[in-house]
């Protein structure tokens, strides 16, 4: 047996297994390539010859016809993504860092956007970069909202309203463009007056509270003074009443004393009269200086 004969023998023996390989195994592998699975937060986009036939394949195990007939793109859709936007970070020769309000004032704004993929098929095929577009759209809708309000509204009640209004108008734009993205929320990280004049704004707040304090102090003083005055008035009344009562009591006392004497007098008029007379003179003459003279007959 020569080497070439041996090789021919082995080659003949290998043909059958190789045939099995070629006509059995490879097609099987090819067919099996159609199996795929999707995690819980993923959705699949099933394409046939490039055309989307199912843009939201559920999680789980699936089969598709192998390429080039069908193919699947997997996307994480349930996950909420976040995008930070600080409008004052712009560094440009021409552009101001702050945003402009409806009356030409400037405010410093930063926010974050939460979004997810609502239509996987559209997200992949509608725009070259849906996220980039989203970023620009948020910037522009925020700008429009700020341009429709004045700075006092914005700094006081405007924060929450900005968040809901911008979210809603961004969502409308996204729906119009069919980007397949949904904004779940917008959160304001910062809405302040420009840093260089923040102090003047704080001064307004303290002036406002000081006004309240001035008024409250005056009211407090008022209450105290009125209470005091009422107290004093009660004292005056009490004193007057005491005096009044004294007058009446004295009168009653004196008259009852005299009525008692009157009773006595009516029993023995002459005697009582003399008695009282002499008692009184006693008291007077013992105090005063007396001179007794004889009247001359003239």
């Amino acid at each position: 047996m020569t080497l070439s004969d041996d090789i021919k023998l082995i080659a003949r023996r290998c043909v059958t297994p190789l045939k099995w390989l070629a006509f059995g195994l490879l097609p099987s592998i090819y067919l099996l390539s159609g199996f795929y699975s999707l995690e819980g937060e993923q959705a699949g986009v099933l394409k046939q010859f490039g055309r989307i036939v199912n843009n939201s394949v559920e999680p789980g195990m699936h089969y598709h016809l192998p390429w080039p007939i069908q193919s699947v793109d997997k996307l994480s859709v349930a996950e909420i993504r976040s995008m930070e936007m600080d409008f004052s970070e712009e560094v440009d020769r021409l552009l101001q860092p702050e945003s402009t309000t409806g009356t030409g004032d400037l405010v410093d704004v930063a926010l974050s956007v939460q979004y997810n993929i609502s239509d996987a098929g559209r997200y992949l095929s509608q725009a070259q970069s849906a996220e980039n577009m989203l970023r620009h759209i948020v910037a522009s809708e925020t700008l429009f909202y700020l341009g429709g309000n004045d700075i006092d509204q914005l700094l006081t009640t405007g924060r929450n309203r900005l968040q809901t209004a911008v979210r809603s108008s961004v969502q409308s734009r996204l729906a119009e463009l069919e980007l397949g993205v949904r904004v779940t929320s917008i959160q304001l990280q910062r809405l302040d007056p420009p840093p260089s004049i923040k102090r003047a704004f704080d001064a307004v707040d303290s002036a406002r509270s000081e006004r309240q304090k001035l008024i409250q102090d005056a009211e407090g003083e008022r209450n105290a003074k009125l209470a005091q005055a009422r107290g004093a008035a009660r004292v005056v009344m009490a004193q007057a009443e005491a005096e009044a009562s004294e007058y009446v009591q004295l009168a009653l006392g004196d008259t009852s004393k005299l009525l008692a004497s009157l009773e006595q007098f009516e029993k023995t008029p002459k005697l009582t009269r003399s008695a009282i007379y002499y008692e009184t003179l006693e008291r007077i003459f013992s105090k005063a200086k007396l001179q007794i003279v004889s009247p001359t007959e003239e």
Partner: protein
Amino acid sequence: MLSTSVIFVKETELVVINQFGRPVRNISEAGLAFKLPDPIQTRISIDRRLNLLALAPSEFVTRDKRNLVLNAFMIWRISDPVKFLASVRNQTTAEQRLETLAYSQIGAGIGALPMGDIFTLEDDRSALAVLFEDIGVQTNDLTLSELGIEVKSIRPEKFGFPRQNLLAIYKRMESERNRIARQYQAEGNEEASKIRAETELEVRKLQAEAYRDGQMTVSTAEAEAAKIFAEAFETNEDFFQFTRSLDAYEKIFSEDSQLILSSDLPIFDQLLDPSASQ
């Protein structure tokens, strides 16, 4: 050769079928499609996706000669591939044309309005939004007819004033805040002194009323006392006159009084002539 008859059209593209160099068919549905083999019919793929063109910041002038700075972006896509290929052919050239067009439209739009119309709070919508919607519509009309391009929107991303004006704006905002702060102060002081004045009045009123009421009480009592005396007096006028006079004498004469009395007085009878009887 026959394999070139079968084409796959992606979701992101439009396909133009050219026959001997001339466009004969547009395919806008993705998936499987058929054509005559090369070189009878050839395919050209056009990206149909939405594109974002960010424009560099630029200064614009309003109707009343005030300067504004803004940067804008455009969202556009190819809508008529044949016209697109005939006019600009590729994305780079398209973007150049779009940029030029955008600047001129924005300039025209802003130049037609005075500053006051842009910074106004009249309606719910900001004047800017309305302005750029108009700009978008006009630009779209032009691009559709000339370039086969649909402009979905032109919007500003940043909008404001030239940097050299910023200091002046800060100063204005600051002095406005100072004015408001001063006003709060003044209001506080005014209200406080008003309260104080009112309080003063009320206190005085309370005092006066108390005094008046007190006086009335006392004088009522005095009248009452007099009445009591008078009533008693009426029962025996003579007696009460007598005792009242004696009371008066007792009060009138004191240690300092000097009395010059006649010896005729009955009280002195016993003193000067004890034997005389009365």
